[in-house]
């Protein structure tokens, strides 16, 4: 019965969070990023936790906070998405030299197919680069089991451990067997040891040698611990890594060997032995050919298939059906277990869109009106969806709207540049760009889309919210004063629902040289809904509607066209009233029931 009670239907990230509790973590930090966010979100909602937890302002900050805790002997985790690891790469690359005292787990969630990301980078490469162990689970249960044991691994070798789930682990659900929570009795204590923690050249050279020496020991241990294992069943083999193991397990014939890779570095001697036992091997892994390159290095007479000879793609997400095709090509399967893919219907696309009443929509609308000849660098967040309104010209990574905008302004002095960035992203890495823009006399308008929350990733609080991750009140940062302190003289706050004022402010900014900062303030409409904020719906007076379509072009999902060509608002209306300002006939007015 006890066994029965422990099995739960859980999201991968929730199972991972539970594993953290079972391992007795002391310190949690991170920056939200899909698909990683629910790990901290789950941990921060635990009542009366024994551990410290924070949402940090960015991944580098989160990483360094966590390693500070580890150096005091505590068990820490820092979470982020794969591109967040780029931000934290600086401390990462040296943390392997310094090592850790308390266990340190870096969770970097990869996103094959870029469901919610700007690229498809493979965090396993970072583990190799930094020379630290990497755990790559095949399913939700293994993700839970691996993370629970990850701090022991970290402490055993005094190395940070990179834990790398993918979207299909983080956002898959499964029946999961859980263990008991294990509250930590540890107390932090920093013991001075400059040779370990001060990486001047004289210290770092021997530390590098120690790191090199650890590598074969780690690789050997990962086989002994069962993370990498070989099930020899014939003369041909599939070697699969991470979630691909699950896809292969579903369809692999019984006479083909299955080599499961769940951790890195791979022991080259072990791999050479395993490969040599087969005449032909097929490597199945998402993203980079990490296992494949290792296998090709060890193979002497064995034929190796994988990405490098076109059996499997370098890009995108795998599935059992995709893996079946590769097995067919290799002749490992004689009959495809999946039906031929039927044709897809042509149905009008329904992409994600800005919510009805979202402040971003009115800002983009006004911006396009005033800066007809402008260039619009933007950033990472809900507002990237402004692309559909033609108001997003560039997006590359967090914080780059301001910096790319500065570059464009110096390159094209005649072109007006308007950068848009959310409050959380501004505080993440945008503020450095603002300082730089002012310092170097860029000529650009910067609009901070201030909805007081990190919305896209699931509404995490940030320094602009006035509350910490665990709900403790904290001073709300003043974006206005921050901008002024950077040296900006044109700093204006506007209500984006007041279209007239918004347009006037943008026009004023356009007239002035230098860096102008406009802060558009309205809470996220999803948060408003959760907080019980209600506004009356707006309605269209059909008799006064001139069927010009101006409101429809605004693109709000709460506006539709009737059969007679007049516009109508739907129950989705949240009462922002911007469409009433847009309507040239004055046909839209407040009047519906409160929503």
């Amino acid at each position, binding site marked *: 019965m006890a066994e*029965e009670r422990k*099995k*739960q*239907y859980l*999201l991968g990230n929730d199972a991972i969070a539970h594993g953290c509790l079972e391992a007795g973590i002391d310190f949690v930090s991170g920056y939200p990023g*899909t*698909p990683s966010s*629910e790990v901290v979100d789950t941990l921060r909602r635990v009542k009366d936790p024994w551990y410290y937890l924070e949402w940090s302002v960015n991944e580098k900050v989160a990483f360094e906070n966590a390693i500070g805790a580890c150096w005091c002997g505590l068990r820490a985790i820092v979470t982020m998405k794969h591109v967040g690891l780029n931000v934290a790469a600086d401390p990462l690359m040296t943390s392997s030299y310094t090592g850790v005292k308390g266990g340190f787990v870096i969770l970097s969630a990869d996103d094959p197919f870029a*469901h*919610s990301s700007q690229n498809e980078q493979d965090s396993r490469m970072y583990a190799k680069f930094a020379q630290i162990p990497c755990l790559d689970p095949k*399913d939700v249960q293994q993700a839970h089991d691996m993370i629970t044991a990850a701090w022991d691994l970290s402490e055993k070798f005094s190395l940070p451990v990179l834990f790398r789930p993918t979207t*299909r682990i983080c*956002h*898959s*659900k*499964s*029946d999961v067997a859980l263990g008991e929570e294990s509250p930590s009795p540890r107390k932090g204590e920093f013991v001075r040891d400059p040779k370990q923690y001060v990486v001047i050249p004289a210290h770092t050279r021997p530390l590098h040698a120690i790191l090199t020496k650890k590598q074969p020991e780690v690789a050997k241990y990962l086989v002994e611990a069962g993370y990498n294992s070989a099930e020899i069943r014939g003369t041909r083999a599939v070697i699969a890594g991470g*979630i691909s193991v*699950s*896809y292969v*397990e*579903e*369809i692999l014939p019984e006479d083909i060997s299955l080599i499961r890779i769940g951790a890195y570095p791979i022991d080259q001697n072990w791999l050479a032995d395993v490969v040599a036992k087969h005449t032909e091997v097929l490597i199945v892994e998402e993203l980079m050919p990490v296992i494949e390159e290792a296998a090709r290095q060890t193979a002497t007479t064995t034929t190796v298939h994988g990405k490098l000879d076109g059996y499997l793609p370098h890009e995108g997400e795998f*599935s*059992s*059906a995709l893996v079946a095709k590769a097995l067919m090509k290799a002749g490992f399967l004689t009959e495809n*277990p*999946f*039906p*031929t*893919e*039927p*044709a*897809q*219907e042509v*149905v*009008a*696309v*329904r*992409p*994600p*869109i*800005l*919510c009805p009443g979202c402040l971003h929509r009115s800002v983009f609308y006004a911006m396009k009106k005033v800066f007809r000849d402008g260039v619009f660098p933007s950033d990472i967040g*809900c507002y*990237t*969806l402004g692309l559909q309104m033609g108001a997003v010209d560039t997006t590359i990574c967090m914080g780059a709207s301001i910096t790319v905008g500065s570059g464009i302004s110096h390159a094209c002095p005649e072109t007006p540049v308007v950068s848009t960035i959310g409050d959380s992203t501004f505080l993440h890495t945008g503020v450095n760009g603002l300082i730089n823009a002012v310092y170097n006399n860029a000529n650009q308008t910067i609009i901070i889309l201030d909805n007081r929350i990190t919305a*896209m*990733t*699931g509404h995490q609080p940030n320094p602009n919210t006035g509350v910490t991750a665990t709900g403790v009140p904290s001073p709300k940062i003043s974006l206005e004063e921050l901008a002024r302190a950077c040296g900006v003289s044109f700093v204006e706050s506007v209500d984006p629902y007041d279209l007239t004022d918004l347009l006037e402010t943008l026009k004023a900014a356009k007239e002035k040289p230098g860096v102008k900062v406009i802060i558009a303030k309205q809470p996220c409409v999803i948060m408003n809904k959760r907080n019980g904020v209600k506004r009356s719906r707006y309605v269209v007076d059909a008799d006064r509607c001139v069927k010009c379509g101006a409101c*429809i*072009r605004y*693109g709000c*999902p709460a*506006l*539709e*066209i009737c059969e007679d060509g007049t516009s109508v608002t739907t129950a989705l209306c949240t009462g922002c009233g911007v469409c009433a300002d847009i309507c040239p006939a004055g046909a839209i007015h407040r009047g519906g029931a409160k929503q």
Partner: protein
Amino acid sequence: MKKSYDVLIVGIGGQGTILASNVLGDACVIEGRHVRGAETHGMSQRGGSVETHIRIDGKFGSLIAPGSADLLIAFDVLEALRYRHFLKEDGVMVVNREMVVPTSVFSAKLPVPQMDDVVSELRSGKATVILVDATEIAAKAGSPLAANIVLLGVASHQLPLSVSSLAEAVRRNVPQKTVALNEQAFAMGREVRS
């Protein structure tokens, strides 16, 4: 080879597809069965088309291969059409007779799809199509938001899960104060026959 019963639940972000899939997942755990599920989070959620995969008795990956789902539960007729290629040829679809016209239709000035045309297109294949006025039934049960539970009630005749496990899973997943309403919605869904 195939041992799992695969259900694809589709709709529009915010309609409650994830809650519906949680009910199926919990029902599996109640019965001590394996289950795998995959869902859409993050950027795609904002009013976009969403799909949730549930593999009852699933032990491997969470993704259902196109052409192999046993059951399609759709919260919107257009989404049923968009995803019906996931269904096996003789599969069953339980579809809410609702249509939210994508904003892209208005912005690109495309012809607005008509309910009758979409329904007859759905019926043109070999799949069994069960059309349900789930939102209307849910409103009668107490709230149109319970349309997802009505659809599960309808689908319960197809699912390899007992009615009592499903009902218990409904109770576990809906907000505390809406339990009675959702129980009613589930029961009313069960009464629907195509």
